[in-house]
């Protein structure tokens, strides 16, 4: 199984990455790599749009955390949008829902990214 990505650069330095698929041990690596690349392209504000993600386990989580750490090094941010109650579950179970930022929609996330 693979993930599918859709990327959008609304402004310089901000990217909206829409992900579709299951985020588990199989595919977590793909996300991690993708996020790394973005940072390497000097995109430090990333909006992860995860409405198309049907499953996230701790592997998927680790990819996201890795991405978070990366952007933080560059004073960036990683915002999460489009999580359903079920997919948000893993964040709740790991208390990462307190640390990560969740937004209702992409525009909001972008707007906040600018403020950052």
């Amino acid at each position, binding site marked *: *199984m693979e993930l599918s990505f859709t990327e959008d650069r609304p402004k310089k330095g901000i990217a909206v990455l829409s992900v579709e698929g*299951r985020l*588990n*041990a*199989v595919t977590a690596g793909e996300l991690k790599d993708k996020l790394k690349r973005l940072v390497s392209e000097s995109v430090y504000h990333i909006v992860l749009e995860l409405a198309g993600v049907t*499953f996230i*386990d*701790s*592997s998927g*989580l*680790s990819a996201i*955390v*890795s991405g*978070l*750490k990366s952007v933080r090094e560059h004073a960036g941010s990683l915002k999460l949008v489009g999580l359903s109650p*079920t997919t948000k*579950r*893993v964040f709740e*179970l*790991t*208390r*990462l829902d*307190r*640390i*990560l930022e969740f937004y209702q929609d992409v525009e909001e996330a972008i707007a906040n990214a600018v403020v950052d």
Partner: protein
Amino acid sequence: MEAGNSPRFPMDIDDPSTNEVDQAVRRALNLTVWNSIRPVAFALAILYGLFAIGHIFLLPPDINTLMASLAGGTAILLFLLVVFIRRIPFSERLTYPLAFVILALASLNSLLHLFLTGDILQTTNLILVVFGIGYFILSTPWFLITLLTTLFSWGIFVTQLDHPAHVMHFGIALFSAALVSFIFHLVRKRSLQENERLRLYTESQRGEVEQALQLSEQSQARFKSLSEATFEGIVIHEKGTVLDVNDACAHIFGYLPAEIVGRNVLEFVSQDDRERATNYLLQGFEEPYEIKGLRKDGLSIPIQITARKIVHQSKEMRVVVIRDLTEIKAAEESRDRFFNLSIDMLCIAGFDGYFKHISPAFERILGYVDQEILAHPFIEFVHQDDREATQEQIRLLATGSDLFAFENRFQTKDGSYKWILWNATAFMEAGLIYAIGRDITKQKDDLLALQEREERLHAILNTAVDGIITIDERGIIQSFNPAAAAIFGYQEDDVIGENVHILMPEPYHSAHDGYVSGYMATREPKIIGKGREVQGIRKNGEIFPLALAVSNVELPGRTLFTGIVRDITERKRAEEALDVARERLQKEIDLAAHIQTSILPRELPELQGFEFAARTLPARYLSGDFYDFIALDQDTCQIVVGDIAGKGVPAALMTLSTKTLIKNESTLLRSVPGILEEINKHQYQDLSRAELFVTLILVRINNQVGEFWYASAGHGEALLWRNLENEFAEIPATGLPIGIFDDERYQSEKLAMRPGDIAIIYSDGVTDAVNPDQEHFGIDRFEALIRDCSTLPADDVLDNILESLDDFSLGVEQEDDITIVVVKALPREASFEWPATLESLDRITAKIREQADIYSNDFAYELELACSEVVTNIIEHAYKQKPGNIRLKINLLPDGMQLDFFDDGEAFDISQIPEPDYDSPQEGGYGLSIIQQVADELVYEPHTDRGNHWLLVKYIRGG
């Protein structure tokens, strides 16, 4: 004078009653003579007695004896006459003969003296006799007879004498004497006659006067009494002044008679009418007229005056008869009231054909105004057809006979006719007909209606196909219609009056009288109101079966029974034939039923994790429902329940073909909807032709995969009891029944049956089952029942349902077939094995998800999450990406799932795994924490004999 009527004395000579007078006069004269016979005879008797003595002495002896004898004899005879004549009633016939005899005796004496003495001088004696004759005899014929006899006798005697001297001298003397005597006679007679006549006249006059006086007195008396007795007042007045008044008149006016006499008649007339009365008086009006009289007390009374002029003693007077009309008027009013109020039409008509006087009822009943009726001859109002009869009746009335109950029709104003019933009588003296008519139109109509009803009834009786016999309470036949006559072979006359039991063979024949009397005593209906089959016996002795219905009719005073009979010989024969045919058919049906039951599935399927129970109960012999279990492979079972819309043989035949078809089409290669579509395609023609359709539900259970797929062709009769939720879920139809459209597409649905869930697929005969009160078993009762026994195994659930149906229907025969299939999901497990590679991760989690989904979405996700962690852990940490396999056992529990993972990789000490730092995000290390949080139970057993063992149990919340 003799008693008796005096003759009416004629006033003049021409009066035819002159004869009567002459007779009376003659009679009177005769009576005079008769009355003088006695004294004369007495005198002469004495005289001749003396002579007799004298003769003896004075006469010469040769003659004295003879003379004395003669004289003596004469004296004696005369003496005898004197004595005896008293005894004899006056007789006119005897009068003159006696007189003659007396005179003859006298003459004889004298003549004999003359002869015997020869002395013609003795003729002087004879002259005396002659004078006596003239004086004595008043009848001229007798006078002459007697005189001439005497003269002649003298003549004879004288000639016998010897030279009589002076014969001529004495002869003339005698002749003269005779003449004188004659004159004497005449004069006496005349004068006596005249006297008598006068006397009679006077008598008669007196008589008349007396009579007249008597009459007058009588008349007077009569008048008096009349005038006193009469109710009518009588007044006699002269020029208005009252001369005489009777008591009645005085009474009418309230006066004493004396108070009225002398006053003016007009004083007794009411003021208003005085002028009129005066006119009448002056006119000498003699017709009766009505007027108002004035009483003493001032009251005005209606009186009728009839007055007449009379002349009395050359004075002109008026006699007035007064009638007090008060009572009459009152009576008239009273009569008029009756006349006017009478409901019936009262009338007076003349023989001239016109009504003279009609009561208001005429207008009320006929609608014409009085004038309209009076203006036309009454016959014009009579209906054409009745005119001749009416004329005839009038003619009869004219002869004096009364008319009684004559009906004719009178035309009303609006043109319709009314029936009138007449009574009439003729008052001949006045030439009037008095009649009373009654409107009997309604009665006539009612009568006609009644007659019509009777006729109709009679027609019904006559034309009825069934025999109708009526009997009285003794069982005697009163009526017997033509149909009954045909059935029994008797004529109506043969049986009327006979006891009805002649139509019955034994035992009815003897028992029937008892039945009737029993009913009359107890009034308990044994056959009345209910029909019965009995036997009858025809005239020819043939006994035959009879359908009998009896009803009773209560009339005042008696009871009648009506029996309707039908010869059911033919029917009975047909029934018997039918029974034979039915029996044969029954045998065939039994055979067919046997065949049908023999192709039912013999065994219930065995599928791990599921229990099955099934039954089909035909309503009659053959069922239109069916079920089938088809094992597609060892993990997959297909359940079919079908209901042919219809019953009996056609439906049953259909079930067989459908079942076979399904079996043929059911392979794993075909999806459930696909099978239905095939069935539909194949069966469509036959079903269309037979105008049938089939509802069908197909359920496919794969317990490995945990799939419960179903497709329902119009078969909504399926329930799913959800154990966790404690409620029923629907299993709705997913397409139209088979046989509706030939190109119908079917959908399938997936159902998850968790352990404890019960699926019940049934036919509508279950919910449509009825009880004696026509209530339906219904879905509510069914669901409640299943709910109550949901914890029981499938068999018990089925038994409970069947028992409950039995209890409900209470033996009522059901209309519809009943089929029930019970599928109960048990706790089940499945074991799997995969290579421990990341590729397997998705597969493994998918499998788990699949099973877990039957519980709930959230449950399933979390469990997937936990399992993903476990498997990832096993792959990455236990096997560290080296080859190996993961073994998984999934246990489906009623309330959750148990997962047992087994691996052969490295074990770890679970207690050594640190908790993640929640304050700073890490890239890993959350796994165990997640598992621990999700699972309700978590056990990690390293190195068991089956390998490292992860045990995870999660329960579903709420349910």
